[in-house]
């Protein structure tokens, strides 16, 4: 188990290194001389200042050396400086990260719980009206762009009936104490988390349904039935447990999509996370910040993939023997 974790972490570090190198070249693809761009962003573009910037960021050195400086910087969590926001990129991201983690993890939990529940129901009542209903429901949310679901949510729950706040993380200026603050944040969290969760819920519903129908036909289920186990026990203990394996794989594959969805959701709901930060960086063409957020997103995906790999190993002991 330990060697497996070490192996996966090593692999993750290699991928991360490759992403950092990719990032380095992407920055150089950005239009204009980076020093001139930075000087422009800082609001002063005379020759001496540009030359100073070049020296400061090592832009006058040969490319491999520049790459080395860049990688070293990221290894020490130095993601560069955002001239637009007048703050180090790493600091800006660290401030916003908790909000994004809260949003994505809540959305993930909602989508997984509801998706598996609906998928199990649909498979249990395959061919009935309930199954068709759930399938159509999942098909529709699978085809709906996240930003549109978000806007329709606002239209419905904030404009038509004034139930939920349409933007932000907490009520501005309320300064609520303790538990009231938690409730306030939760209220603000419901719509963004549901918006982000619905798309993934649709995927997990479809996956769980298909996978359960497939497992149901396998011999060990027949054996369980022959042993005289009740239907609900077979469904829970035999079918669902095995049917969940592809769902775990899917969750890992979708980690990147989840982060991408967070960018959209945070933009619509003005949720103060790194997705919103990415959008701001985009509007201001703040490339340092943009690529800093991109690296952070990649690290989050790598960590999430590592976790799903471990979970998969825990729920499917057969893998141990295979490797």
């Amino acid at each position, binding site marked *: 188990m330990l060697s497996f974790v070490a192996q996966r972490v090593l692999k993750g570090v290699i*991928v991360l290194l*490759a*992403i950092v190198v*990719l990032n380095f070249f*992407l920055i150089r*693809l*950005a*239009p204009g001389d980076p020093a001139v761009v930075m000087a422009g962003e800082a609001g002063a573009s005379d020759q001496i200042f540009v030359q100073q910037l070049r020296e400061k960021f090592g832009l006058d050195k040969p490319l491999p050396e520049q790459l080395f400086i860049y990688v070293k910087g990221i290894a020490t969590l130095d993601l560069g400086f955002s001239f637009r926001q007048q703050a180090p990129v790493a600091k800006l991201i660290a401030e916003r990260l908790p909000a994004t983690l809260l949003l994505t993890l809540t959305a993930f939990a909602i989508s997984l719980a509801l998706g598996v529940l609906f998928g199990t129901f649909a498979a249990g009542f395959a061919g009935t009206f309930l199954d068709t209903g759930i399938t159509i429901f999942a*098909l*529709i949310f*699978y*085809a*709906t*762009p*996240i*930003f*549109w679901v978000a*806007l*329709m949510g*606002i*239209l419905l729950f904030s*404009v038509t009936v004034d139930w939920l706040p349409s933007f932000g993380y907490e009520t501005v200026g309320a300064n609520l104490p303790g538990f009231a603050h938690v409730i306030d944040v939760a209220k603000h969290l419901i719509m963004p988390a549901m918006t982000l969760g619905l798309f993934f819920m649709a995927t997990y519903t479809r996956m769980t349904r*298909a996978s359960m*129908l*497939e497992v149901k*036909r396998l011999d060990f289920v027949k054996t369980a039935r022959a042993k005289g186990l009740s239907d609900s026990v077979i469904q829970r203990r035999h079918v669902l447990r095995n049917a969940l394996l592809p769902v775990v794989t899917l969750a890992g*594959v979708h*980690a*990147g*999509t989840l*982060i*991408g*969805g967070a*960018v*959209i959701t945070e*933009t*619509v709901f003005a949720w103060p996370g790194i997705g919103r930060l*990415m*959008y701001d960086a*985009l*509007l201001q*063409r703040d*490339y340092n910040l*943009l*690529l800093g*957020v*991109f690296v952070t*997103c*990649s690290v*989050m*995906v*790598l960590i999430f*993939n590592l976790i799903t790999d471990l979970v998969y190993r825990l729920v499917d002991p057969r893998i141990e023997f295979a490797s």
Partner: protein
Amino acid sequence: MKQFWTSMLRSPSGVIGLIILLLAISIAVFGPLLFPNSPWRMVQRPFLPPFTLSTVPLGTDALGRDVFAGMIFGARVSLLVGLISTLAALVVGIPIGAMAGYFGGKVDDALMRFTEFFQTIPSFALAIVLVAILQPSIYSIVASIAVVSWPPVARLVRGEVLSLRTREYVQAAVVTGQSHSWIILREILPNALSPVIVLASLMVATAILLESSLSFLGLGDPNLISWGYMVGAGRTVIRQAWWITVFPGVAILISVLGLNLIGEGLNDALNPRLSREGR
């Protein structure tokens, strides 16, 4: 071929999907000829509600532009970007997958590590970064969607080729001294195509979603109107004018739904054994 169409037409999702797609294509092709209203021109007062004037059936946006015209011209951009970026992803993914599966060993290892790398990078974030850096245009959008969507193609083709490579007719071709490229192109790939076609139809759907999301964030081609752009532009005035965001969103939803249904129909038609087992 005939058998393919009969089984495709027997699957209800395939039929509904085909109808939706044909409708969308005819709107994209003929719509702009029938409704020459430019989607960028001011035609009426701003915020005209829908269903009030027959000349502007879906109302106007914040600048008095025709929402209906925007939807019709937007169909072109969505379908075009969806199709071309999928084709581009196939052009990248099929050779990589075919080479990895056919040659195996170190080639396979190297190509698959490369593919996995691209699969690990958060795709939408990469697409945003690429379009922002290359400057928004229809070309940069197509290119970035292709860059983030080829890995599944490569993996799928690799898997198919791996299993086909050991078949007897392929061995026979090797024995008769055919070249590698001839064997891959003429013997293996044609037999590996049906799952690729199913995947491609789903990829067009995903590409349309991606394009609309990019345009929504303001990364669309500034010279072309698209559904995502319209929703993004209507976002700030959603409290006064719901129709600006609602209608283009419905258009995206229906097209993507149609393509997903076609994917299911194709799956039933091309892999009949699989679909029967699934029931």
